[in-house]
C-alpha cells in the first residue's frame, strides 16, 4: 500500500525538532501531485508549574528496540485503516527545552479526512503505547517524571 511500509524506520531525533526540519519535510511533498491534504501534529514542551517550580526542559529516553517495534505496528495498522499517501513520525530523545518541539506527526492523503483522522489517532497511540520516558528538569535543578494521562 505504501513504499517502505515493511521497513522498520527510526523515528528518533536527538534534541528538539526544528521548524526548518518540519519545513523540509513539507516541501518534499510538493512532488506528490495526488495529495490534497496534510495533517500535522506538533508536541511542544510546556513550562508547567510543578512543586512550585517551573519545568525548564524534558530529558527524553526510550527503550529503542521495543519503541521501533511498537511504532512499526502502529504504522502498519494505520495504513490498513486509513487511505494515506504518506506518514512520517519523529520523536525527540535527549534534552528538549520548554517551547521546543518533541513530537512531529505528519500524514497526507488524497482527500482531507483520512489524513486528519489518522494523525489524531497516531498521536493518541504514541502517548499510550510508545515506551518513552520524560524527566522534567525544574528551575531548582530537581526533577519530576512526566506521566501521560
Amino acid at each position, binding site marked *: 500500500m505504501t513504499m517502505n511500509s515493511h521497513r522498520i524506520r527510526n523515528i528518533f531525533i536527538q534534541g528538539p525538532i526544528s521548524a526548518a526540519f518540519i519545513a523540509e519535510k513539507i516541501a518534499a511533498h510538493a512532488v506528490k501531485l495526488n495529495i490534497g491534504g496534510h495533517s500535522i501534529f506538533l508536541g511542544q514542551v510546556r513550562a508547567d508549574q510543578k512543586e512550585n517550580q517551573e519545568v525548564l526542559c524534558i530529558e527524553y529516553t526510550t527503550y529503542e528496540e521495543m519503541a521501533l517495534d511498537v511504532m512499526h505496528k502502529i504504522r502498519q495498522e494505520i495504513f490498513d485503516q486509513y487511505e494515506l499517501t504518506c506518514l512520517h513520525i519523529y520523536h525527540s530523545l535527549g534534552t528538549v527545552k520548554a517551547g521546543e518541539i518533541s513530537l512531529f506527526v505528519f500524514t497526507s492523503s488524497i482527500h482531507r479526512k483520512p489524513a486528519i483522522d489518522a494523525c489524531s489517532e497516531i498521536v493518541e497511540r*504514541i502517548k499510550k503505547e510508545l*515506551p518513552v520516558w520524560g524527566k522534567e528538569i525544574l528551575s531548582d535543578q530537581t526533577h519530576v517524571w512526566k506521566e501521560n494521562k
Partner: protein
Amino acid sequence: MNTNKISILFFGQLTELTGKTELELSGIEDTLAAQEILKDLFPKLGQTPYLLALDREIIHENIPLKGNHTLALLPPYAGG
C-alpha cells in the same frame, strides 16, 4: 535445572529507584518469580506501577521462562 539467563532492563524513574539500568538473573522459572526476586532486591518496586515487556512485547500474565530472555520494567510513558 533451569540455567536460563534473563536480562532485566529498567527505564525512566525505575533506573533511579533501583540505581541500575540493567542486571542479569539466572535460574528463573517464570516472569512472576522474576518480579518477586526484583521486589526483594529493590523493595521500592512494590510501590511503583510498571508494565512488563518480555522480549519487547507487553505481557499481562505470568509466562514461563525457558531459555534466555529480556524482561523490561516499564514505568508510565511520557512520549509526545
